């Protein structure tokens, strides 16, 4: 059973000095971060400038900050900004959630799916649809569903002396049960409703309002901050339970804390955009290939990369595709997958197993 959770992680480039800030030996993090920020700014500009009423980019960006013509400001701030901010925040939340889970479980396949969170979010949203509630309630329902999954996980999987393997199995079980429920509902609904359910479960950023963004987005930001504050604990946990215990860390509590943060981040992100599973799974890997082994710096980079990926996908879905109204989840998977696979194949060094 040990193979389940102790699995190999690909090596980043050799002689990486994690970003200690001192004597950084060819750390790629600053470079990648800079590139990411530049791309993000470009995407933000594109996002606020385009739409039903095309606006000159400079005007649009000014409008974002409240300067310039009132008409422009209105369009940008009321209609375009919420969607953009939602994509950024949700992308960051999903990526960091995925990164935390992968480190916690020492398994490159760990993602909120494994915890049943995405299944739960889908379940909540679809159940809300079945109950006939309006679109407004969906994010809340998704959040509720994700947390329900977490509760189920806790009830069935958590015992003192947590076994990671057990958690993974129970997480898969919860995911399976909840997605079976979703499948059931999709099959039993009349077609239009099934279509809406499908739309939601594939992920979409359409029609987000500021209320939703402030509440869910704000919580995501809080979660992100917590994740960074607790990063030292995660680094110590990486040393294994024995070493971590003797360094004075209560491993049980620390794992729980980080797990909760990861689940909350993923649930909130799913509340904003629906369960876009690919971001949580793939972005941490991409960041590792680009910038080396996990540190606080790469965690920040994951947040940035997740935001970039989701926002880019949303823009592609809105403006570049012939079919309109396509869920953003489709684009993220299609954009991200080849890139990840190429990175995976190009990585030439042999896959090491961590020293047991």
């Amino acid at each position, binding site marked *: 059973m040990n193979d*389940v959770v102790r699995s190999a992680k690909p090596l980043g480039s050799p002689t990486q000095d994690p970003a200690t800030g001192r004597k950084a030996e060819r750390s790629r993090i600053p470079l990648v971060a800079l590139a990411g920020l530049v791309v993000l700014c470009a995407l933000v500009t594109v996002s606020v400038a385009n739409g039903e009423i095309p606006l000159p980019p400079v005007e649009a960006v000014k409008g974002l900050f409240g300067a310039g013509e009132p008409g422009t400001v209105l369009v940008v701030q009321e209609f375009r900004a919420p969607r953009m901010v939602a994509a950024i925040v949700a992308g960051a939340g999903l990526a960091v959630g995925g990164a935390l889970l992968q480190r916690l479980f020492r398994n490159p396949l760990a993602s909120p799916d494994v915890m049943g969170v995405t299944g739960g979010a889908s379940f909540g949203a679809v159940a809300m649809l079945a109950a006939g509630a309006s679109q407004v309630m969906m994010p809340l329902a998704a959040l509720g569903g994700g947390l329900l999954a977490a509760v189920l996980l806790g009830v*069935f999987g958590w015992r003192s002396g947590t076994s990671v393997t057990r958690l993974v*199995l129970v997480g898969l079980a919860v995911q*399976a049960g909840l997605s079976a429920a979703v499948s059931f509902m999709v099959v039993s609904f009349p077609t239009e409703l099934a279509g809406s359910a499908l739309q939601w479960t594939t992920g979409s950023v359409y029609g987000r309002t500021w209320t939703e963004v402030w509440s869910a987005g704000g919580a995501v930001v809080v979660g992100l901050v917590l994740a960074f504050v607790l990063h030292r604990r995660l680094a110590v946990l990486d040393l294994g339970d024995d070493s971590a215990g003797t360094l004075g860390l209560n491993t049980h509590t620390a794992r729980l804390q980080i797990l909760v943060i990861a689940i909350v981040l993923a649930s909130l992100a799913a509340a904003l955009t629906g369960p876009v599973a690919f971001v949580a799974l793939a972005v941490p890997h991409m960041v590792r290939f680009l910038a080396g082994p996990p540190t606080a710096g790469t965690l920040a980079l994951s947040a940035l990369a997740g935001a970039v990926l989701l926002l880019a996908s949303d823009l592609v879905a809105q403006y570049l595709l012939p079919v309109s109204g396509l869920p953003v989840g489709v684009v993220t998977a*299609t954009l991200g997958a080849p890139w990840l696979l190429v990175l995976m194949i190009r990585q030439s060094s042999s896959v090491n197993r961590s020293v047991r």
Partner: protein
Amino acid sequence: MPDPRPAAHVLRRVPLFVAGLGALAVCAALSLALGARSVPLSTVWEALTGAAHGPDALVVTGLRVPRTVVALAVGAALGVAGAVVQGITRNPLASPTTLGINAGAGFAVVTAIYALHLTRPVQYVWFAFAGAAAAALFAQALARRAGDLDPVRLALGGTVLQLVLLSWTSTVMLASKRSLDEARFWLAGSLAERPLSVLYPVLPTLVIGLVVALALTPALNALALGDDSAQALGVPVSRIRTVGGLAVVLLAASAVAVAGPLAFIGLAAPHLVRQLLRTSDHRVLVPGCLIAGPLLLLAADILGRLVIRPSELQVGIISAFLGAPLLALLARKVAR
């Protein structure tokens, strides 16, 4: 190490195997008898022997016998595929779906429905098989490294492939309401509307897959000791993995082509056999899955027919519902 003399340890297990076959027979009988209308067992017997010809008998011979036979075949294929894939990846969480097989089949079928306006499961068979095989082979190609399959790459690549194909499938369904309507039932995995003719095209691949899987069992035992030890025992590790992978593809693609994507049977059957027979010996495990797989599938199917009588709940949904507590139970047994 398992007992090198096959006769002895198989003999010890014989009573359990007989019990398993008995349970399977009972399930099959129930499958013939139960459904939207319950047919008494005596009538079932008469229908099978050709003595009765009433509407009940027709239901039995016309609908339920094919359905039961299909369930037996698909269950066996999935069970064995699960055992083999867990053996070659040495990962008890592996299942035939992790290679992207189900997602590949789903995408191919939905595209076929969209482009060619197909409507019946019998028509989907070739597309499903092709899609499943293509996806699985692609996943295996991605995982090739130094002539061998890297299990981590396989799992990661398979999962990524699955996500992509699922999203494309959703796209097609969102683009065309008709496709959505047709496809969502097939995608849930079902044994309904599966006459025996649905089985014929995949029968060769099924049989080949089974034969190959059975032939691989001693090698799988050696593989469980670790690549180095297996190599030292004279097992050509990379070749066994490749052949095993092919067997899995043949079996799982055949199964999904016939019944649609079914979760958990492939994952659960080997675990069930391991727990009940207390063995990891593949020479016992694989034949055991030949019984456990159909048992699980038939049980799920019967349940699906009864739970919302007179209409029916797809077996794919039931199996996922059943699989969840099964996994949780498995989790409890994990020590540490």
